[in-house]
C-alpha cells in the first residue's frame, strides 16, 4: 500500500486525538493507576477489567505507560464502534481496537470473538478485554464472566493475565445522563493470574472473578 497524503493526515489526526482524549480523560476523571502484585511490564499482557461505560478502555489505556499503550489494543463491540464515522475513527485509528461482534457470531460466516482475540494474541498484541461480555448498567457490582477468558488462558499460556478494577466511571457518566461529573477514578491492576494444570472452566472463571472483586477499594467492599 502506498501511503497517500490523506492517510498520513489521518494518522497525524489519530495521534493528536489520542493525546487529546487521554488528556481530557485525566483532567475530567483525575484517573490514577495503582499497581499491586505486579508492575507495568513490556510483556505481552491480557488485561481483563469490569465494564460499566464506553470510556473504560480509555481510562485503562491512559494509566498505562505511553510505550505500552502503542502495544495494547482494546477489544471493542463492532456494533457500537462502527455506528458512525467519528466512532470508527476513534475505535480504529486512535485506539487500533480489535472489533468483535457481540451477538456471538450467530450470523453465518461471522468470525468467532474468542478466535479473533486468540489470533491477535498469537500475533503479539496485548489486549484489553471485558469478560462480562457487555456493559454493566445495573446495580450489580460485577456481572457473571463469560467463558472466553478461560479459552484465551488455555490457548495462550504465555500471556500475562492481569485483573483490573476500574472504579467510579459509572458514577462519572451513568447511562442516559448528558453531563459527566468530575469524580476521581482509579484503575487498580492486580497480580497476574495463571491457569493451573487441570483447572476446569468453572473454577478458573470463579478465581478470575474473585481476583477482580478483590481489587475493589475497602469502602466499596463494605457496601456489599
Amino acid at each position, binding site marked *: 500500500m502506498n501511503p497517500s497524503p490523506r492517510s498520513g493526515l489521518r494518522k497525524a489526526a489519530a495521534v493528536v486525538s489520542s493525546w487529546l482524549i487521554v488528556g481530557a480523560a485525566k483532567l475530567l476523571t*483525575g484517573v*490514577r493507576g495503582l499497581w499491586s502484585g505486579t508492575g507495568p511490564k513490556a510483556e505481552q499482557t491480557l488485561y481483563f477489567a469490569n465494564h460499566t461505560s464506553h470510556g473504560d478502555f480509555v481510562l485503562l489505556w491512559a494509566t498505562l505507560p505511553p510505550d505500552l499503550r502503542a502495544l495494547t489494543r482494546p477489544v471493542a463491540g463492532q456494533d457500537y464502534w462502527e455506528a458512525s464515522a467519528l466512532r470508527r475513527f476513534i475505535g480504529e485509528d486512535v485506539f487500533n481496537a480489535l472489533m468483535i461482534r457481540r451477538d456471538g457470531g450467530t450470523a453465518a460466516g461471522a468470525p468467532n470473538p474468542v478466535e479473533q482475540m486468540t489470533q491477535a494474541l498469537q500475533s503479539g498484541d496485548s489486549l484489553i478485554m471485558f469478560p462480562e461480555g457487555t456493559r454493566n448498567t445495573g446495580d450489580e457490582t460485577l456481572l457473571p464472566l463469560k467463558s472466553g477468558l478461560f479459552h484465551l488462558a488455555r490457548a495462550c499460556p504465555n500471556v500475562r493475565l492481569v485483573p483490573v478494577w476500574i472504579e467510579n466511571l459509572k458514577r462519572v457518566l*451513568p447511562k442516559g445522563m448528558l*453531563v459527566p461529573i*468530575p*469524580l*476521581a477514578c482509579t484503575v487498580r491492576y492486580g497480580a497476574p493470574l495463571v491457569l493451573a494444570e487441570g483447572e476446569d472452566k468453572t473454577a478458573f472463571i470463579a478465581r478470575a472473578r474473585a481476583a477482580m472483586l478483590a481489587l475493589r477499594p*475497602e*469502602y466499596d467492599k*463494605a457496601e456489599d
Partner: protein
Amino acid sequence: MNLSASTQTTLTLFGGVFGVLVLASAIGALLKWRVAHGQPHPVIDNLNSRVNAWWVMVAVIGLAFAFGKGGVIVLFYLISFYALREFMSLAYTRRGDHHAIAVAFFIALPVQYFLIWIDWYGLYAIFIPVYAFLVLPILAAVGGDTQRFLERTSKIQWGLMVCVFCISHVPALLTLQIPGFEGRNLLLIAFLVIVVQGSDVLQYVWGKLFGRHKVAPELSPSKTWEGLIGGVASATALGAALSWATPFTPWQAALMALTICLMGFFGGLVMSAIKRDRGVKDWGTMIEGHGGMLDRLDSVVFAAPVFFHALRYWWTP
C-alpha cells in the same frame, strides 16, 4: 506608598517562610544522612516529601499573590474544585444524585467564587447554606430514588459546605474593608495560612518529638496531647509575633491565632472522622507525602469562616 509597604511586608513574610523551608530541607537531608544512612526510612522519607511538597505549595501561593485578587480567587477556585472532587469521590451516592452533583460542580462552585469576585457579601454568605441546600435535595428527590435519601443529601450538602463555602472564605478576606489597612488584605490570607499550617507543622514536630498520650486514638492515631498543646501554644506565639503584619495588636493576634488553631485542630478531627467512616486513610494522592488536597486543607476549612467573621464583626465599620 501603602501598596509598596504592603508588598514589602508580603515579601518579608515570604522571606521568613523561605528561610524556614531551607532549614527544614537541611534538617531533612541531615536526618536522611545521619539517621537513615541514605537507606529508605518511612518517617524520614515522608518528612522529606512533605517538605518538598511545601516548597511547591509556597511557590504556588506566591504565584497567586503576584497576580493579586484574580490570582488568589483562581487558586482557591481550583483548590475548592479538587477538594470537592476528593469529597464526592469518597461519598456514597447513587444514580439519582447525578444532577445534584453536576449542579454542585458546575453551578454552585463557580457562582460562589463569582460572588466573591464582585464582592456581593449579602449573597455569597447565604448562597450555599440557603439556596444550594434547598435546591440540591429537590434535584435528588426529582431523581426519584429514596434509598438512604437523607444520608446522600447531607453528604452533597456537606461537600459543598466544607469544600466550597468554607474554603471560599479565604479569598473572601480580600473583600473586607478594614480602616487603616486598605490595600493590604493579602496579608490577612498570609496570616491565616501561616498560623493554621504552622500549627499543623508544629503539632507534627511536637508530636514526633514528645508525643506519648493520644488525644483521639479512634479518629487520628497520630494526634497526641503533647503535640496538640505544644503545637497550638507555639503557633499562638507565632501569630502574636506576626502582629506587625496585621491590623491586630500582639495580644489580639495571639487570641486570633489561638482561635484559628483550635478550629483547625477540631476541623482536622472532623475530617478524620469522615475518612474513618469511609474506611480510608487519605482523601487522595495529589500532594506527595500529605495525601490529598483535603488532607492538607482540613484545618484551613474550619478556621477560615470563623477568622473571616471575627474580622468582619470587630474590625470593619
